[in-house]
């Protein structure tokens, strides 16, 4: 569920179909995932999940798996 939502945000931002975003998706595999879109990704995820990232969080979410893990880390404990 979380992964689907992250995929949807990425799909909108990078202009690729959600199915094309696999676990290893990264700036190397997705053309529009450049350094500036990376920032927009972080901001969009903050809005989508109502969370707050640190600078290190943003710098560290370098592929799909890490993105998901970072979102997970910042979600309140009670939420799924």
């Amino acid at each position, binding site marked *: 569920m979380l992964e689907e939502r992250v995929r*949807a*945000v990425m*799909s*909108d*931002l990078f*202009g690729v*179909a*959600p199915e094309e975003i696999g676990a290893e998706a990264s700036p190397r595999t997705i053309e*529009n995932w450049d*350094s*500036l*879109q990376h*920032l*927009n990704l*972080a*901001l*969009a995820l903050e*809005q989508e999940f109502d969370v707050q*990232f*640190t*600078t290190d969080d*943003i*710098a560290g979410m370098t592929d799909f798996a890490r993105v998901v893990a970072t979102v997970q880390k910042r979600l309140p404990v009670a939420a799924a």
Partner: protein
Amino acid sequence: MSFSSLRAEVQDLLARGDAEAAWQRLLTALEPELTTQACVMVAAQADKFDLAALGLASTRAALLGSFTLEPLVPLVKALGYRSRLAPECYVGGFNAWQSEALNGDGALYRFQPDVIFLAVRADELAPPLVHDFAALEPDAIQAELDRAQAELEGAIAAIRSRSPARIVVHNFAAPVHPTLGILDANHAHGQQAVFSSLNERLRTLAANYRDVWLLDAARLQAEIGHAQWFDARLWGLARLPLSARAQLRLADECVRFLRAFHGASRKVLALDLDNVLWGGILGEDGADGIQLGTEYPGSAYVEFQRAVLDLHQRGVLLAIVSKNDEAETLRVLESHPAMLLRPRHFAAWRINWEDKAQNLVSLAEELNLKLDSFVFADDSPVEVERVRSALPAVMTVQVTGEPAARAGWLRGLGVFDTLTFSAEDRARGALYAQEAERKRLQSRVSTLEEFYRSLDMELSVSMLDATTLERAAQLTQRTNQFNLTTRRYTLADLAQLRDTPGVRVYLAQLRDRFGDSGIIGLAITRSDSLTVMLDTFLLSCRVVGRGVEGAFLAYIVNQAQQEGQLEIVGEYIPTRKNQLAADFLSDQGFTRAGDGAWHLSLTGHAVAYPEWIRVHAPFSDPSPNPSPQPLTPIPHPNPSPDGRGAGVRESAQA
């Protein structure tokens, strides 16, 4: 929110060759709230369109500055599209504004910009003024100011000598945490004073060159607050000293300049009246009952009028588009003591019961302006949607939210900005284009019927019961305009009528795509074995003109027919206020007899309902309407504070 379905729809419309519809659909991603993701998506999708063919005006904007500027590009584009501009953008190298300005053979000038934005921060232009301030002697401060001014002038002069482009220069925001702390504002050479001086020098400098404008970056930062403006994470990671919100606000300000330069700013504010310029509905509450005065909420509406008046004084044309009785309305505009706006402030008005989209087309003709000069503001989502769908060039805004916040909201709209430069020149050239567009528009305004159909209207007819007595009495007492006989009934009167044999009190409730209007119609019939007398038939003026009155009457007539009656008789008793209902009975097929009453024979066919309204009723009904539905409960007539009905109850059978 995901855009994948919207993108698919846009793709689909493009594939079918309807670029205009695809474009309008794409732009809906920018509403109701503007987000970075939406702008990025829209800017990317725009590559699939021929923007010139869609009528967008091309404009070439270069962004130079001392920090990362690329993120602004999709925002400027998307905001530009909303104003029917098609910005093409060039971004200068990181902190390379000076070399870009000086390099006559460089990419900046090859781009041939129409506008060059120069976004330089004091942090980069004059670092000692920001970071080493306490160590500076007054002489050193002056020297630093001189140096900064000279560098700015150097760049501006270089650009001016190489390009006719307009130049828009950011001014400087004083540090939010001055080194001298609370002493700073009290000190002759505090940072507050120094930055004031820097901005003053910039203002003088700009005035010495042709077409150099200042963008008040300091005010923008103050508008949303430094804590909201600066995102330390983005600064750390990308040398981007603007939060997402600041980026959007700054891009918006840039587009305000682009609009003004293009003469594309809006010029007319066309306003609804009820619940916009005053609280309440004039036709129902009367001139003494509308909320407008020194006490809340009337005072909030006065403040809103003040904001409208400010626009008028700045040169924005004002117009009225309102469904009301013209004579009564003008009386209020002339003589209500709390009105700030008077008839003389309005360039034109259409106060009638016609379609508002047609009214706007007519106003545009009268004022000799194109529809893309218009802003239309109304509190009704139905009217806003009608104008939005019929006239995409008009900027429609729904007046919503609490009255106390509306004056501020209107002031912040930012779509009327003008420069005094060449406004007349542009108007001359545009006259011919206006004529052609007007002709094109007349044929494109979609029919009212299509629009009504899209509203998904549902009318529920039921009988008066104990829970609806109060609303019913209120309707008979306050409805003046669409009221055939203007008979007033108290609660007690209606309770008695409800229990009188041969008498029926019908109530009509309307729901549509935008919500539940509640009980908006009432009819009283008295029957003997052969004839039904229509004692009362009224409809709230809020919902007149959409076929609701016809549907309500059709229900009553068809029921009488089913029950074996031979004739239905109605009256029209004219008053000063109910001219609106004068032709209703004759339009519905009634004929006037010698006694002055209106008769309709029930031995013919059943009366047809307007196709676009579904009627629900407690009685089974073999009319041409879709299959009868079970009775829909009527919400409590006194809604709870959160706007929903306090509870839904089954309406008892009479």
